[in-house]
């Protein structure tokens, strides 16, 4: 019976979630004006909308990995939403392709204030050595198109680095 096997496997696996990493405040692009008020409004929960603005899909692999059991992001109050209207934070990957510029702007506009933007990946941050920079088809880093609070470099950045960047964006310290 499948149920019996599932229970057996769950029991054998145990809990594999690891403690959350600390916020990496060095990733901030500017000193944030965060009020205690805002933190109070959001409490401990944070809803993220991911936007692929032209990535090679490498960055997405690590966002998926973040949803795995080791990272247990829902356990610390972080949740991915299907609509920007439900989001507090936009997590944007890729060099912004010209074919997605409008969609990115519209998604940003559709996200209610207050909101944060985390750009991730060497391409999204315009880091030195990024394989995709500006050309006829791409604009370049996310900050060229919408305001960005935190940049997480890496090709792709690890799930831990992404989480540190997200926490840096929303922690008021």
């Amino acid at each position, binding site marked *: *019976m*499948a149920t019996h*096997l*599932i229970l057996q*496997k*769950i029991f054998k*696996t145990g809990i*594999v979630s690891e403690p959350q990493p600390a916020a990496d405040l060095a990733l901030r692009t500017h000193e944030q004006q965060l009020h205690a008020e805002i933190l109070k409004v959001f409490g401990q929960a944070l809803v993220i909308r*991911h*936007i*692929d*603005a*032209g*990535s*090679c*899909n*490498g*960055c*997405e*692999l*690590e*966002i*998926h*990995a973040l*949803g*795995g*059991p*080791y990272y247990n992001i829902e356990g610390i109050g972080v949740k*991915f939403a*299907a*609509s920007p209207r439900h989001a507090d934070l936009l997590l944007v990957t*890729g*060099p912004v*392709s*010209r*074919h*997605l510029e*409008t*969609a990115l702007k519209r*998604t940003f506009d559709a996200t209610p204030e207050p909101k944060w933007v985390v750009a991730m990946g060497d391409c999204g941050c315009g880091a030195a050595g990024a*394989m*995709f920079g500006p*050309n*006829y*088809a*791409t604009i370049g880093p996310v900050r060229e198109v919408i305001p960005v609070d935190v940049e997480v470099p890496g*090709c*792709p950045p*690890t799930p831990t680095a992404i989480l540190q960047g997200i926490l840096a964006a929303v922690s008021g310290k």
Partner: protein
Amino acid sequence: MGHRLGDIELILTPQADGAIWRFALDTERLPSFARGIQDEGGQLLALWGSDDRHLGAGYAVHVAFLSSVGLVWTSSALPADNPSYPDLAAIFPQADRMQRATFDLLGIRAEDAVDSRKWLRHNAWPENTYPLRRDFAAEPTRQLDAYPFIRVEGDGVHEIPVGPIHAGTIEPGHFRFSIIGDRILKLEERFGYTHKGTEKRFEGLDLATGAKLAGRVSGDSHSAFAWAYCLAVETATASAVPERAVWLRALFLEIERVANHLGDLGYLGNDAALTFGFVQFWRLREDWLRMSAKLFGHRYLFDCIVPGGVAVDISEPGKAELNALADRIEAEVHELKAIYDEHAGLQDRFANAGIVKPALAARLGLTGLAGRASSQAWDARAQFPQAPYDQLDVNMGTHRRGDVLARAEVRFVEIFESLRLIREILGRLPAGVLYAPPTRMDAACEGMGWVEGWRGPVLVALRIGADGCLDRVHPHDPSWQNWPLLEVGTLGNIVPDFPLINKSFNLSYSGQDL
């Protein structure tokens, strides 16, 4: 060397272990040649163009055919003014989007093609300008993408437009569903959103940087693209690669296959409401990725394959660790497979969803993993094995059902086979150096690489200029020919099954948007 293909006698130039053959073909003979390939059961894998005017020629259209002798790469010269060639989509329907993209990028037209709508072009460059031409200098337009979708009309027909920004963490693209009730009458895809001008970026890069870019054509297939690119460079420059490096490349490719299949099997469980499956498979995948990071310095093995060899080695203790993890993952995947096999709810969702029957798969050129799940028994590692696969005896996984169940089943079979290959490679890894610099050629040279990636056959064709830098690179992802089969495979299914069916193909956007 002479070869017969159907009733055509060919004089072919061998490339790369005799798995790839080059053939210069008059443009007018393209259709009869294509029909010859089709008559003997072959397929069209890729079609692309090149601007050769700086070499004192006009343009060229290139086709890669899969045939009984291996891969046949034909090149047909086209005049500099009004370059065009006979339509091949009437023979091989999978050529349709490739021909349209070739027009968008190079202005080379397929004459009398039924569908001549744009494909990759939205508004990043104006009509009548072509980014892959050497003299391209256009500015982006500000118009919105006006794409003429095909409309389904009738009582009770509704349209659901989805994307480009999707509800989940997936790549951007547009799906236009025409439905009655919950049933899908028609699905039409619109892609090109992640077009990054990848082919243009290759122009002028040095060979080492080119490998990095090739590996990022589609990030989930890094090793496949990087290896195919390096094979192309090494064929073009007639460079020998140290044996140990060749075996390590295969190790990386199989590690990549296992990583992707584990992830997909988890998501397939998730999309059928078995979260347990997601959590378990993604635990295993994370163990696998962390092992790659520990042994080779990168979770996805980025930049481990370089022209001339590989950049990282494995130690004896590293081998033992990888072997032990492979053993554990094999045992756990067997346990999970027993659960997937017995789970009535899961089987109910998997079986008969998104069927692509073998005859249709053959007609439309379904390839790779999805092809093998619909009886298209092609796997370059098994049929045209290039080193080290010629010494590894790969067992191909196939299935006849052509549904989500079959595509899941082939993934299970391939995980077990890849784990076997990994242990075999680790056990037989030849000693020696990891790298030998590619030969520097004095004149322009061309080459092609062909690798069976986890999704299917990955090709890279390239020309290196006389200055030693890249002149033209065309990377081909199997998603090109498989995306149209998703349109067909979802017909008659219900909209809520679409995510599951889509996941069972798991095709690349970035790889086809280029």
